[in-house]
């Protein structure tokens, strides 16, 4: 599992804006974008993972990461360890 505590702690951001997943030839790139109240800029952190590698969830630091991660799990199959939604929130369930 890819740990992300370093990203979460070092960023010292006020808010997580979004999580974006990009598919690469082998694996994925995950971009975290953060906002700080005293800065007009968007802070960015990038994580590179292999195809079946799992990633630690951002929920302990930013509670609203739940739906953002869940969407990535649904579309790309990337699993976030510690996310209770486990990819079943944004699309209708398959019958």
């Amino acid at each position, binding site marked *: 599992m890819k740990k992300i505590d370093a990203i979460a702690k070092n960023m010292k951001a*006020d*808010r*997580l*804006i*979004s999580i*974006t997943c*990009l598919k690469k030839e082998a694996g994925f790139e995950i*971009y975290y*974008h953060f*906002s700080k*109240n005293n800065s*007009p*800029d*968007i802070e*960015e952190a990038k994580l590179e993972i292999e195809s079946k590698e799992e990633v630690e969830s951002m929920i302990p630091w*930013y*509670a*609203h990461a*739940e*739906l*953002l991660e869940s969407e990535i799990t*649904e*579309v*790309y*199959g990337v699993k976030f360890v510690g996310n209770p939604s486990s990819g079943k*929130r*944004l*699309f*209708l369930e*398959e019958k």
Partner: protein
Amino acid sequence: MHKTCLFPIGPQHPSLKEPIFLKLYLEGTIVKKAEFDLGYAHRGVEEKLEDKFLDTTLHAVQRTCGICSQCHSLAFLRAVEGIGEIEIPKRVALQRIIIAELERIHSHLLWTGVMMHELGLETLFMYFMREREKILDAFDEVSGNRVHHSTDLVGTMKRNFSDENIELVLKSVDGIKNKVAEYRQTIESHDVIRDRCIGKGLITNKEAKKYGLVGPVARASGINYDVRVNSPYMGYEIVKVKPILRKEGDAHSRTLIRLDEIFESIRIVEESCSKIPKDEKVPKYPVKKIVHGYGVGRVEAPRGENFHFVKIDNAKTTRVKIRTPTLANIIMYPKIIEKADITDVPVIVMSMDPCISCMERVAVIKDGKTEVWNSHELSKGRKDD
């Protein structure tokens, strides 16, 4: 001893203007637990934006939402123009924010009207719809479209606003001022509205911070955050915005904050119109070819911060991620509905101003035929035979 029963609301329900399925577990009339199901309006927007030239992508991005078309256009352009290091002239910057602020006014008028409908005040609903028509007429005049204005191009705009256009815009916003002020006073003091809204759907400042809420929902809980103020862009570098804040965090404060934002938007439109340089014209398209790179852009949509991630390879967009304000705020729904009375649920849900179609971005239109893809097919990027 009360027995818990499941009370479903939606996905199609008179109290919801867009499809969302709320599962409420009741004890008597009190909601003990709330869950929601999404996915009834997915259209595959992000997937369809892959491998498209920038002008095609921009055209599609502007149609992500039927209410806040301009805010998607501006977030996308903020990212793309950042990648291409394009500086936009003053006229373009101001024309863009005139459309953006008119959009905020029409969105808030629409929302307040629907909120009044939820409260059973149909006359006020009709009054707000009547005022909104004046703003839609202004859109028609400057862009030729009442809903999807689509006035922007990368680095420029499709046309210069004429003096007659500006005059009609100013007449439209001036025409709603007194009426909206009168309706605001009614909403602030009306006993039925106060009883149904004050203390309902409470979000504390701490909760708003913890869940990263955005827009009027966050500002009604005392979060001083507005992208136009914290990270000024385009015309907001020229025309400064005064943020509007409240502390109560309930449905009533969320209503009043949107009404107050209408007046601030009217002021911004008036100031922007007065500052448009008459001797300047919008640049000819294309301004610059953008071949590679990635960037991000965020703007303050009527519902809050709207974020776009854009990656360009060989002059085509290979990935566009859109994080709409409703996606940031929807996590609060179960939390504010729990412990509420069932009769208050429509008011509480509506006070968050959800835009479900805008949030659900992923049916796919292929060769003019609409197909509905399931999540498994979407993850593979193709439909099963």
